[in-house]
């Protein structure tokens, strides 16, 4: 069965205060970078097997749904590629 690598991005929803992002923002500003905002999220790279690309996408989305907390997070399937 073909192997795939999915890149899942988990971010805090818009409007949810992100103190981690604020701390990073403060440091960047302190170093002279005029940033307007920073949000910190998570990237998960998942390697798995699937019959085909369509099934791989379904599986990747199911895993993203399982791992993100819908109360305060959203997930995006950033990338999906077949591994050789």
């Amino acid at each position, binding site marked *: 069965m073909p192997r795939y690598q999915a890149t899942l991005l988990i971010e805090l929803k818009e409007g*949810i*205060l992100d*103190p*981690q992002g604020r*701390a990073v923002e403060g440091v960047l500003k302190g170093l002279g970078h005029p940033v307007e905002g920073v949000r910190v999220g*998570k990237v998960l790279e998942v390697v798995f097997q699937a019959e085909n690309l369509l099934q791989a996408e379904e599986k990747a989305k199911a895993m993203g749904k*399982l*791992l993100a*907390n819908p*109360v*305060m997070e959203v997930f995006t399937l950033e990338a999906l590629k077949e591994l050789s």
Partner: protein
Amino acid sequence: MKWAIVRFPGSNCDEDTRFALTKAGLRAEYVWHTETSLKGFDGVFLPGGFSYGDYLRAGALAAKSPVMAEVARFAREGRPVIGVCNGFQVLTEAGLLPGALLANLNLHFTCKEVGVRVERTDLPFTRLYQKGQVLRLPIAHAEGRYYADPETLERLEGEGQVVFRYAPLRGEGDYNPNGSLNDIAGIVNEKGNVLGMMPHPERAVDEVLGGTDGLPLFLGLVEEVAR
């Protein structure tokens, strides 16, 4: 009455919890998180700690443990379920309590005594307290900022599901230790049988430990059975 204390990899308040339950006259046994049955138990306690090292999100991976299907059954059947600190995080991640616990506003791991006001006393967990009584309880967490969307928050307040709220101990103004919405420190589900709270009542059951304000919570569980 026999309580199950669920141990996840990284639980660290399990022994304190057993000490508190036993002191109140209840029987308690540890249950490993891979168990699939809680047969023979009357209540289940999810203790504090750092299950799975807080990886992904505090409580997120523990919430997917095999034993959680049984915890969900207890919740559904109206049996008592208590989650303290990491246990509260596990209950929200499992969807057994609404909302979520986010990183403290100041990003610090905060370990100190706080004031906790009792908002309702018609629950087994709080029946031995006075309404409005301010307890002195320790907190120890980095992710305790209670968050829920505005509709959920309104429903919680409307239904009286907020059981504990941070309150001044000595008139201090900055009594909310983590930025929790509405100063929320603990909530119950709609039925009132699932309690989640960030402060640690099990760490306040003996004068040697600095206070006994947590003991009535455990004694209240005994009274519940006797009724």
